[in-house]
């Protein structure tokens, strides 16, 4: 079953064409990789499917619903969660608070509940707390540590835990291994596989070729905003257009 289907997505920033006519589809349960040189438009594509940017043209379908212009919180509710390339945790809050905030979209208590603290609200609050602790244990992060005091690798894992707290169908990860050493990357790989085995579809931007090869079922390659290749990691690796994009031109890898 197709979970996410992009149809001819384009994005213009003034004169700059960051994405043009990008179409792809992601099946439920797969790990789909997105690679490409710097400035290819990968993050821009993530921003569009999470509602932070509006596509200039085209639309996408997620879990059976069409989206063209929409708001981030609606897409989070629909089941797309993400992490950010330049980590965006709630830096001054504890790890626990960060993950608890992730539960917002799946819980209901409003002002009245907060003020009256009725049974239902208290039960919900306990459930939020329990789930947050569970997720923190899952990614192995101490609950009471302030987010900005965590190591780089821990911060990346905390962002994943926070995203998982929204009970996503699709988890979009923007360069989750960036800045990690080899051991950290290996444990990240295990974590991502575990998440996929838990039934969550992964959409992954990554520069680490080994990680892409070892993890992804399919990979798409963007270059200058266009999709130039798609297929199994092995096939893509040997695609001359891809080799050209990475090595043939003058732009930085």
């Amino acid at each position: 079953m197709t979970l996410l289907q992009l149809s001819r997505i384009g994005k213009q920033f003034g004169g700059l064409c960051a994405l043009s006519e990008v179409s792809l589809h992601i099946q439920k349960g797969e790990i789909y990789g997105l690679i490409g040189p710097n400035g290819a438009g990968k993050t821009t594509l993530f921003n569009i499917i999470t509602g932070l940017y509006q596509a200039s043209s085209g639309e996408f379908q997620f879990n059976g619903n069409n989206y063209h212009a929409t708001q981030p919180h609606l897409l989070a509710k629909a089941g797309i969660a993400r992490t950010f390339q330049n980590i965006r945790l709630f830096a001054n809050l504890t790890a626990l608070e960060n993950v608890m905030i992730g539960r917002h979209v799946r819980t209901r208590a409003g002002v009245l509940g907060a003020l009256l603290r009725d049974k239902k609200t208290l039960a919900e609050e306990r459930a939020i707390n329990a789930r947050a602790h569970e997720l923190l244990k899952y990614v192995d992060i101490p609950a009471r540590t302030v987010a900005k005091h965590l190591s780089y690798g821990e911060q990346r894992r905390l962002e994943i835990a926070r995203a998982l707290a929204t009970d996503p169908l699709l988890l979009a990860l923007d360069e989750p291994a960036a800045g990690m050493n080899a051991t950290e990357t290996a444990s990240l790989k295990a974590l991502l596989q575990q998440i996929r085995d838990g039934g969550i579809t992964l959409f992954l931007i990554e520069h680490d070729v080994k990680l892409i090869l070892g993890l992804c079922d399919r990979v798409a390659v963007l270059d200058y905003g266009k999709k130039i290749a798609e297929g199994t990691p092995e096939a893509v690796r040997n695609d001359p257009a891809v080799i050209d994009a990475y090595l043939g031109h003058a732009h930085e890898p």
Partner: protein
Amino acid sequence: MQNAPEKRLHKLLHSRSFWVCALLLLPFATDALLGHGWVRILDFAMLYIMLALGLNIVIGYAGLLDLGYIAFFAVGAYCYALTGSPHLATAFPLSIEGGVHWPFWVVLPFAALLAGGFGILLGAPTLRLRGDYLAIVTLGFGEIIRIFLNNLNAPVNLTNGPQGISRIDPVSIANLHLNVTQPLFGMEIPSVHLYFYLFLSFTWLVILASKRLEKSRIGRAWMAIREDEIAAAAMGINTRNLKLLAFAMGAAFGGASGALFAGFQGFVSPESFSLMESIMILCMVVLGGMGNIAGVILGGVLLAILPEMLRHSVIPLQQGLFGKIIVDPESLRMLLFGGALIVMMLYRPAGLLPSRVRRRELGSDEMAEKP
């Protein structure tokens, strides 16, 4: 190791009944030691604390800088002034004989709701603004309300302009009017004491509400918006609605305090709602410790009481030293106030009693939270 008396003191300071007794006795002690006027000052301090706590929701929790907060206080105050005084009868002599005189307890929730509505009115067009820009717009909003109050005496005399509205009904509980001395429990309790207890109970309610909001799903969403609005939205928080909610909640607390103020004073006029008052309340929040309830209360108490102490000490002091008054207390107050702000920003930027989050933000507790 603590020795026994120290331990006992510690226990005393942490017992609820001690504080309740102390606060109940406070107006009597103040009256006996300093005189009646000071109990009145305490009453105002309570109002300021309520206002500061209301503003703390907007700025401390949700991180929205609001420089026109006093406008909501004004909305609440005029709401009760109009419905609880004969003024409307002079404005519309044919339709309302002698004014409407709605009871305070009916108007209070209405005043809070109306102020909350004004909060949304202010919030809606400013949703996309942050920081300085938001501050400027809210500042303008506060002034607009004040100017309206000043000028809405023609063509229909709705607010009575700069003269203000007087003869507002006092607050009464059942048949107990709070504007006169009442015999209670075999004691004569003066009006200012009665109002003190009334305001104390309301302050307690506002503290309770603030505390509960802070540790709730809504409070966490506000914190998330304050920390990183984009990440908050990506986590599924409807940032627009939650910002409006913060404006509305803060404004509703301001409106309720305003109604209390009108009932207490019996008189309101636009000059009580100047920009300076907004700034005062903001300073209470910032000096005390933004986002921390105890800090905000401390800020409110200090800034409400210190200027009065100054007023009462500077004149006799100058008279005694120089035989005449060289610096008038009002300008001295502004001078000291400005100086205090600068010193605070240099040495304790997170406030006197900072919230743990602000402390982390300003980096004065490196790793302190690490277990």
